[in-house]
C-alpha cells in the first residue's frame, strides 16, 4: 500500500519536477557555471569556454560602472521597499476602516497592480516628460520651481542619488504598492478586536494603538513581505530597462539591466553571468533565510 502510494506521488510529481529541473534549477546552475568560464560569444567558436575561476567576478568588480550599479541596486531596493512599506501600512489602515465607499476605494488603490510593468514604464515616461509633464506645470503654477524638472535625464547627483533614480523608485513603488496593501490588509483583519479594546481601556491614543498593538501584531507578515520585496527589488529589470536603460550616465543602472546589456549588447555572457551571479548570491542568501523561517514555523 505504501509503495503504491509512493509510486503515485512520484508519477504525479514527475512533470512538474521535470519542468522545474529543466527551466528552473538547471539554468540557474548553468548560469553559475558560465560565470566561472570565459564565454565571449564573438570568440567562443575559436577559443571555446576555458575555466577561468573567479576572473569574471574580479572583472565586473573592477568595472566602476558595475560597482556603481551594485550600489544603485541596493539603494533602489532600500528606498522602494521602504516606500512600499510605509505607504502600504498607511493605506491599509485607511482601507481597514468601516465606512461607505470602502470597496470602491480598495479597487481604486489596486489599479496599478494590473498595469503591466512595460505599460507602467510607458505611461510614467509620458507623465514625466520634461516639457509636457503636468507635474512640472503644477509646481510652476505654485511657484515652487522656475525651470522644468528633467525627471529622467537630469544628471546632477547627490552622492549616488539623483532625480532620475528617485523617478524610477517612484514608479517601482507605484507598481508594487497594491500587492503590499492587499498583503497587509489580510493581516490587519486577523488582529483580534479585543486587543484594541484593551488598549482603549488603558487610554491609548491612535498613534499608541498603532505602535503598540498593530505593528507588533503585523511583525511576522511585515518581515515576510520585506523579504519578498527585497528579493524582487534586487532582481528588478523592466522599469529601469525600458524607462532609462540605466542612464543618464549609469545613474539608474541596476544589476539585472547591466547583466542583460553585457549579454545582448556586448555578447559577454561570462560577465553577464557574473553580474547575475551576484544577484543569485544575494537573493539566494535571503531566500534560504526565508525558507528556513518558513519550515521552522511548521515544525514548531
Amino acid at each position, binding site marked *: 500500500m505504501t509503495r503504491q502510494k509512493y509510486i503515485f506521488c512520484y508519477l504525479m510529481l514527475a512533470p512538474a519536477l521535470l519542468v522545474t529541473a529543466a527551466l528552473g534549477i538547471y539554468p540557474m546552475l548553468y548560469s553559475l557555471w558560465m560565470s566561472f568560464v570565459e564565454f565571449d560569444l564573438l570568440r567562443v567558436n575559436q577559443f571555446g569556454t576555458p575555466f577561468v575561476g573567479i576572473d569574471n567576478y574580479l572583472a565586473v568588480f573592477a568595472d566602476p560602472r558595475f560597482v556603481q550599479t551594485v550600489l544603485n541596486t541596493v539603494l533602489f531596493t532600500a528606498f522602494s521597499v521602504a516606500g512600499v512599506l510605509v505607504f502600504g501600512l498607511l493605506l491599509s489602515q485607511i482601507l481597514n476602516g468601516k465606512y461607505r465607499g470602502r470597496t470602491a476605494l480598495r479597487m481604486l488603490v489596486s489599479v496599478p497592480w494590473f498595469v503591466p510593468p512595460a505599460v507602467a514604464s510607458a505611461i510614467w515616461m509620458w507623465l514625466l516628460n520634461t516639457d509636457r509633464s503636468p507635474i512640472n506645470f503644477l509646481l510652476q503654477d505654485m511657484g515652487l520651481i522656475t525651470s522644468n524638472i528633467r525627471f529622467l535625464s537630469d544628471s546632477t547627483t547627490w552622492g549616488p542619488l539623483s532625480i532620475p533614480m528617485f523617478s524610477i523608485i*517612484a514608479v517601482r513603488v507605484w507598481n508594487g504598492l497594491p500587492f503590499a496593501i492587499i498583503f497587509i490588509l489580510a493581516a490587519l483583519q486577523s488582529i483580534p478586536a479585543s486587543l484594541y479594546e484593551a488598549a482603549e481601556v488603558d487610554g491609548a491614543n491612535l498613534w499608541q494603538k498603532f505602535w503598540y498593538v498593530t505593528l507588533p501584531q503585523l511583525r511576522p507578515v511585515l518581515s515576510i513581505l520585506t523579504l519578498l520585496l527585497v528579493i524582487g527589488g534586487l*532582481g528588478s529589470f523592466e522599469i529601469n530597462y525600458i524607462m532609462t536603460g540605466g542612464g543618464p550616465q549609469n545613474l539608474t543602472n541596476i544589476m539585472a539591466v547591466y547583466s542583460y546589456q553585457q549579454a545582448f549588447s556586448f555578447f559577454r555572457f561570462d560577465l553577464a553571468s557574473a553580474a547575475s551571479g551576484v544577484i543569485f548570491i544575494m537573493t539566494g542568501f535571503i531566500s534560504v533565510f526565508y525558507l528556513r523561517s518558513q519550515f521552522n514555523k511548521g515544525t514548531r
Partner: protein
Amino acid sequence: MTVVQTNAERPARLRPGLFERFSSMSKVDLLTRILVVAATLALLAYILLPVYWMVKSSFQTNGEIRALPPAWIPQDWTWQPYLNANRLIPLWRYVMNSLFVSGTAALLSTIIACSAAYVLGRFRFPGATLILGLILLTNLIPAITRVFPIYFFIQNLNLLNSYVGLIFAYVGFSLPFAVLMLRGYFETAAPAELEEAAMIDGCGHFEAFWRVILPVCLPGIAAVAIFTFLNAWNDFLWASLLLNQGEMKTIQVGIGDFAQEGGSVQYVNAYMAACVVATVPALVVFVFVQRWLVGGLTAGSVKT
C-alpha cells in the same frame, strides 16, 4: 442616544455618531487623523494620476496633446488614436499573440501544477520537503539569473521566435507559483476525508484525485490559471528575448518597441491608446480573481 451624553454613561455596545466621535477625541488623535487623511489624499493622487493621464492622453487629438500647458481634460474626445495605433503597429495581432501565448502557458502550467500541488499538499513521502524547497527557491530567485541558459536552450531547440519556445519558457516561469498557490488551496478547500471516503468506495489514488478532488477545487484551479495567465500577459523580459520579430511579438514587447518607433515623440496619443489596450484584458481578468487574491498570495508561504 443624544450627543450630550458623556462617555461614562454611554452604553458600551452602541457605536458613537460621527460628531461625537470627533468631539470626544483627544487633540492628538484629531491631529493624527487629519494628517492621515491628508497623506491618503496625496497617495491617491499619486496612484491615480498616471492612470488618468494615460486614459486622457489616449483620447486627445494630435494637436491638443502637443499644446502647452497640457490640458487636464480633453476638449474634443476622439477615437482616432486607437485607430492610429492599430495602423502604426499591428496592435490587434499583438493582443491576439499575447492572448494565445499566455492562455496556452496558463493552461499547461495549471494542469502540471495541479497534480504536483495535490501530492505535495496531501502526502508525506521521501524527498517531499526537498522538492517543495526547490520549487519555492525557483519561485523566489529572480528570473534574470536563469535567462541566458534558457535563451541558449531555446535557441538550440530552434525555437527562438516561435510561439512554442515562449510558451515553454512561460510554463517553467509560472509553474512554481502555481504549485505553491494550489498547494495551499488543496489543503484548505478539500479535506482529507473526501478522498478517504472515495477510496473506501474502491477508488484508486488517481481516481480519487480526478473524480473527487478536482471537481471540488475547480474554482481555485480556475483562479490559479487566471493568475498564471496574468503573469505571462505582464511579462516583458522573456518575450523581449525569445520572441521579438515582426508580427509575432506579444503586446508588451510591441509597446516597448513602439516607444522607439516614434511612440514617445510623434504619436503619443496612439502610444497611450496602445497602453490602454494592453491593460484592459488584465483589468477584466483581475476583477474576476480579486476575491482569491489574498488567500492565493498568502498560500505562497509554506505551511508544513
